[in-house]
């Protein structure tokens, strides 16, 4: 758990660096080595590590727009994931998906940039597991801002009525971009949404990996045993802007400083120290994590960019015959060109 968390933290810090470095002196979203938007999850690590610790490769996880910490905890190939984020041809998705669309079928990980829309496919993966009689489970991650979205709420019901092996994990960082949660829902505890669907709802009120681990043990265990879904909300903290480049004018000045004092990694480190893990060992774990991240970034940067022509591949797995690039004269049956 500690390793996953320090890996994820260092990963986000390094991506931030790489991303912003390329955007000097003026921030230009189209400049620098990392294309597109970037949503980083520093402060969210406990929710990822505490839950995914209970999962196997054949369990499914769907994540939202802020996916790296979850992907790391689920065991997604870090080199290929990083290559994808850098937009390289050997990335997980050949450079077509990018940071919000990471797919790694080897460990059954996927993400989607549309709020709450990872929930229904997670329910579907759980449905497949149940139909096939395996004890596989599915976990759908979402933010607290997503608990107002129909796709999530419908998924609760579908999972509940079929007693499907799903755990919905809400990462409550109190913010949906600039909107504090009090402004968008009356419910203080997102796990309360479960009440309307006859499903257990559990909230972990502290940004604490061990508490998450314990709550998840029960939720994942329940799912794996065939006893149905659970809604698990976890308090996390957003240490950075919503995306890189977010000026955060809406955020109280001292909030991040205050939150950093509740850092889940520090908290877990204290716990480990109390359990007798010595400083050296923690240092080793951190160093290993950093090496792994540096290696992944170095790997990514070495990879080639995709060839423009590759843009036409992969729309279909079974391409029409004769295979033809869409939009070319050939595909259009000739032309005056």
């Amino acid at each position, binding site marked *: 758990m500690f390793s996953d968390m320090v890996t994820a933290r260092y990963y986000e810090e390094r991506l931030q660096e790489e991303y912003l470095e390329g955007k000097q002196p003026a921030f230009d979203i189209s400049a620098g080595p990392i294309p597109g938007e970037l949503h980083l999850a520093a402060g969210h690590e406990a929710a990822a590590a505490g839950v995914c610790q209970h999962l196997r490769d054949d369990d499914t996880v769907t994540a939202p727009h802020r996916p790296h910490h979850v992907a790391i905890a689920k065991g997604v190939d870090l080199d290929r994931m990083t290559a994808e984020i850098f937009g390289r041809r050997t990335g997980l998705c050949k450079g077509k998906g990018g940071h919000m669309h990471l797919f790694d079928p080897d460990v059954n990980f996927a993400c989607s940039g549309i709020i709450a829309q990872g929930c229904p496919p997670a329910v579907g993966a759980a449905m497949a597991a149940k139909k096939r009689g395996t004890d596989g489970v599915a976990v759908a991650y979402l933010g607290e801002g997503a608990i107002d979205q129909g796709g999530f709420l419908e998924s609760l019901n579908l999972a509940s009525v079929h007693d499907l092996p799903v755990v919905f994990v809400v990462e409550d960082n109190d913010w949906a971009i600039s909107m504090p949660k009090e402004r968008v829902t009356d419910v203080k505890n997102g796990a309360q949404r479960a009440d309307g669907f006859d499903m257990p709802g559990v909230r972990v009120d502290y940004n604490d990996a061990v508490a998450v681990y314990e709550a998840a043990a029960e939720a994942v265990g329940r799912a794996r045993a065939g006893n149905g879904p659970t809604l698990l909300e976890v308090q996390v903290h957003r240490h950075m802007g919503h995306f890189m480049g977010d000026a955060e004018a809406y955020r109280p000045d001292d909030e991040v400083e205050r939150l950093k004092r509740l850092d889940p990694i520090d908290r877990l480190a204290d716990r480990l120290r109390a359990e007798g893990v010595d400083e050296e060992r923690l240092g080793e774990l951190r160093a290993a994590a950093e090496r792994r991240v540096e290696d992944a970034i170095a790997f990514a940067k070495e990879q080639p960019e995709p060839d423009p022509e590759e843009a036409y591949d992969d729309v279909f797995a079974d391409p029409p015959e004769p295979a033809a690039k869409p939009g070319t004269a050939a*595909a259009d049956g000739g032309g005056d060109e």
Partner: protein
Amino acid sequence: MATTEPEPVAERDLTMSRAMVEAVATEMRENDEVFVMGEDVADYGGIFDSTQGLLDEFGRDRVMDVPISETAFIGAAVGSAQAGMRPIAELMFVDFFGVCMDQIYNQMAKNAYMSGGAVNVPMVLTTAVGGTYSDAGQHSQTLYGTFAHLPGMKVVVPSTAYDAKGLMHSAIRDDDPVVYMFHKRLMGLGWMPAPPGPKTPVPEEAYEIPFGEADVKREGDDATVVTLGLHVHRALEAAAELADDGVEAEVIDLRTLVPLDTETVVESVRKTGRLVVVDEDYRSFGVTGEIVARAAEGALSDLEAVERLAIPDVPIPYARPLEEEVNPATEDIAAAVRRTQG
């Protein structure tokens, strides 16, 4: 994927709904990973008979009634397809796409591409389309163009029982998401009489109809009528009338919108020089415009006249005289073809 059209050992005349269900049942027998999900697909057998009898044979685990939560259950189909199953999910009326389009076009259709081919989504989304029975603005659309416009889904529209069966076999076996749009008026429902055309002889064996091959339903030298779905039958009627006056119209049933068989259209236009496109979608920014554009790209110098018939950019009205006014009729097609002559 080559066509496998066997010599018909045993053929029966089937309605389109029976032919469609036969393909589904055959695939379900052969492959445990195929299952059906939708509202009223179990006991009811589908509001438009699209799953009639399947519950009895396959039971509730494989023929699942689901809550009225299209986003959740179509998304669940996406998830189970990505896990390797082959779900068939039914959107009761295509008009309801607005409550679940994100799962359809942002997940189902794009995940293969966005993953660089790492995942496939081998599912079939069946849905009822079309009007002619006064079901008004929210229950009478075809939305052919809406689905065909967005990349990553194959879109098929059978017009006969023979095609309904073959296209369904192909759809289930295809590794990509296929939107299978069946026209209510063609299904052969007890309570909504079909015109004579869609009920056809259908072989008992399984066969595929490859996607991207239009069917030339009738040959002719004087004009090319490109159409699909219900209007195949209206176009054939119009062609018969026109033939009485010595005007020979070629009638092309597109059968699949994605992929689209441009070649057959362009070749025909090269021969006839006159193009009439007819469908039951909204006129602007839809199917008729695309076909005209492909013909213009492929055979501009041969093109002497162009006509489009479609729903004239109004929601579908309820009262019969109004709906009849906006839905292209046989006479409208005949008149349009005549306008292109001379």
